């Protein structure tokens, strides 16, 4: 489903050149739940942005659904992105001026769904996420957990193949964090591929595989169970 070969990303300013990703190669299969871990500044978010088709790599190849997309234009990327990827962010990234319903509806609008279809889909997802009673509220009127549930609803409403989650529990307490992780787990069980960037070992334990980055390179790729056992042994 996703494959990178020697993926490189270099940020240049007038005087400084920073290599955020250095020849990163890996593959993620359909239906997997993968966590990406590593210290701050190791390139996790850069990798997620490239995987999410928000940014192009500086070098290497990126295969998304078997297409080499590393040289796609913004328009091509946007087109591919809106049909296949859902995003969940640490800070929820809801539009404050739109209600819960309208926030969740947004991807469907850009996909050209009719109003009736949108209503049906959004209500279905809000029911599923148990946030239907808040449909007319605005983000600032909700708790963090509720906001993230809305964000997850928005990520899944267009039935994407992949969900990219960037520290989805970073702004939540453990109870709400678990709720969100359970939601993602359920989605994964129903067939959605999930790629999650996290600092939290607890969250990473929900995944089947961990890619660990350091200074823009993959240092290990391990099975979660082994990692948990190792952690427990320490």
């Amino acid at each position, binding site marked *: 489903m996703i494959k990178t070969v020697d993926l490189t990303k270099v940020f240049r300013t007038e005087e400084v050149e920073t290599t955020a990703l250095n020849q990163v190669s890996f593959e993620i299969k359909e239906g997997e739940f993968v966590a990406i871990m590593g210290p701050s500044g190791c390139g996790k978010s850069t990798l997620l942005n490239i995987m999410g088709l928000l940014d192009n790599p500086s070098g290497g190849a990126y295969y998304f659904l078997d297409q080499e997309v590393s040289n796609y234009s913004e328009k091509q990327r946007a087109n591919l992105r809106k*049909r296949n990827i859902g995003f969940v962010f640490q*800070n929820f990234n809801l539009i*404050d*001026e739109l209600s819960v319903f309208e926030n969740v509806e947004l991807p469907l*609008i850009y996909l050209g769904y009719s109003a009736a279809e949108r209503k049906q889909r959004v209500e279905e997802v809000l029911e599923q996420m148990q946030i239907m009673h808040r449909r007319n509220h605005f983000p600032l009127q909700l708790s963090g957990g509720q906001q993230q549930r809305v964000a997850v609803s928005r990520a899944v409403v267009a039935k994407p193949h992949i969900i990219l989650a960037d520290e989805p529990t970073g702004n939540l307490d453990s109870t709400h964090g678990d709720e969100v992780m359970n939601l993602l787990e359920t989605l994964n069980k129903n067939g959605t591929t999930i790629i999650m960037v996290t600092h939290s070992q607890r969250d990473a334990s929900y995944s089947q595989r961990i890619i660990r980055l350091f200074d823009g390179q993959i240092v290990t790729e391990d099975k979660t169970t082994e990692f948990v056992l190792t952690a427990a042994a320490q």
Partner: protein
Amino acid sequence: MFKQYMLSAWRNMKRAILYSVISVFCLAVGISGAIVITMYLNHELSYDTHHEHHARIYRMEGIYDMAGTSYHLAITPFPLAMAMQNEFPQVKNYARFFVEEEERMVRADDREFLEKGFVLADSTAFDVFTHHFVHGHPKGALSEPNTMVISRSLSEKYFGEQDPVGQSIDVSNRHYIVTAVVEDLPENSHFRYQAMLSMASASHERVYSMNPELFWNINANYTYIKLHPDQKMDAVMENMPAFLEKYVNPLGEQFGASAQYLATPLRDTHFHPVMMAPETGNKSTLLILGLIAFFLLIIAAINYTNLATARAAKRAREIGIRKVSGANRRQLVVQFLSESLLVAFLSLFVSVFLVELLLPYFNSIAGKSFSLSQLFDHGIMFQVLAITLVTGLAAGAYPSFVLSRMNTSLIMKGLPVQQKGSALLRKGLVVFQFAISIILVAATLTVQNQLRFLQNKPLGFNNENRAVVSVYGNVAREGIETLEQTILQNPLVSGTTKTFSIPGSDHNVMAVRAGVEGEMRESAISVNYIDHRFIDRMGIKLKEGRLFDPEMRTDFNSAILVNEAAVRFFGWHDEPIGKQIHMNFDQEGNPRDVMRVIGVVEDYHFLSLSNPIEHHMLILRDTPTSFRYLIVEYQDGKKDEVLPFLEKVTREFDPSRLPQVHMLDMGFSETFDAEKRLGSIFGLFALVTIIISLMGLFGLSSFMLEQRRKEIGIRKVLGSSSLSVLRLLYKEFSWLILVAVVVAAPFSWWLLDRWLQGFLFRIDMSLNPILVSTLVAYVLAIATVSYHSLRSAAMNPVDSIRAE
């Protein structure tokens, strides 16, 4: 999707209410100005188009050369129209209008009125021009002597609601029968009249129309020619030389003069300011107003652009989310353009109310009578909608470009997305706004200085405490000395004098031969006929020679006074006294009068200040019918007592007319109406521009300071005082104003210098207006940014650092 855009736009506006109000209000002010100016431009450009056949109608004008001086007049000889119809097959019809007297004494329904706009007109006027008849018929309406057609408002004024056809009205003591009532001429008619008296009513010798061979030398009436359909005026003008040869040249040779005729299309007459034409429009004023409207819109649009791009950082997250949710760039551009259009159309809505408030003031300074309902005329409405649409799109273009271009991955990382380019552009736009404000303020000041200069310019005679009594008609003039004696009995009156022309009004120009270098050379000179007290009473100074002496009979028929300009003109520097001027020639060209210069008076402005002081001569008269005016000097501060007295005695003197008494300085103060209006319009729009610019600056300063919160916090933590922070902030805004001055000063100088060149008598261009306007702009700008700057400088640094 559009609904979603609108919803999101509306909620965004509500969230940033201060900035939304500023944007909407500024655009509303800009659009209001543009609406008013659009109405004005439409009005000015639509003159005379209400006449069904306007494209086939022309006004004939004459260019007359007399002794080397050329006069371009809107009036022509009476026989011209008839001769043209006889000679040129292209001419279908003609209509002549003759303004015999500017003001007419009218008696209707036992009441008296002093009316303007009473003209003699040919019965063909209704064939040439389109009139809408309320009562009566066009056919035969002006065929008979002593018949008249009046306008609806005149009819209502005299007779109320009743049909006045068949009623009698006395005009200048003659009976006329009303044969028809027509709708008032629209305001956009270059020549407006309220009543048409049949040309057949005029005495034969007055109208000279019976014999086309005669009287080609007297220009008196307006001539309008209507062509047959599909005929071209060019074809007529091609044959004009032969026409002139047949009718005009023989007579011209006799007088040492020549004439040629021009045809001005009816639509263009309003912008054709030739001598004796009805008041015309001014294309430069239209251009200036058009530019002002354009700049007002740009300045208002700049506010929107500036505030919208300044807020880009605030909206970055929304843009990122929309992009992540699948929006492409085009969709975002459409969204932001929809927002600016929403703001523009909200502004249009607000501007309708502003226009309602603004119109009375604009009408008073522009001398028009526009009403809000005209806004809903299809043509104007369409233009206003188009202006709003274009303004909305222009204002939103840059923000939508900037916002939609934002890098999603940077936004999502929470990195700053503010572009350096847009900050520079914002500053550039502020500079532009202030440059325009400085130019407009400098223009207002310069126009005012020039007007003040003209109003205070020494005229070469004394026009204070002097009233003018007009005496109409030879019968009344016969008794002018009796009137003078009556007036002199009033102890408040210190003296009187009689004259044919008064300073500031038209003067006759006469063909003469003047003794130059030993021979009599043909020339033309303006002339006034005066009594012997005129020079003293008017305070005109004698330069050399002597004044008229009523005891010397020869002074009445062979002496003249000339001005210094005449001495220069004829080259009499060595010895002007005794030089000859021959005038009033007979058929053989021999002079009936041989005059000698007895004295030279200092130059004084006998014409309005729009004219140079030309060569001029004064002739002594003692026949009462030579005088049209009595100038009355009264004691200082007694105007309010003397004017009613003068009106009373004039009325007793000539009961057939309403008395005409006015101040001598009126002739000069009325001359610069157009410039005064221009000054007022500049003033008004300068104010509006400054308000818009300041509001924009207020909003922008708030954002600029918000962005620098952290910097200010850190500076204060490191020991900077509030005062030094304030100085830092002021310095930045001061730079913007300084750059604006550098941009505005040369342009203002060039523009205003050009404007001043249009005056014969003008102030010297100085830096003062530009310096003053700069100071005004600077003080106001600093006061505006102070609100936010003081708050920023005074804030607790801990708050700003924690907020980061």
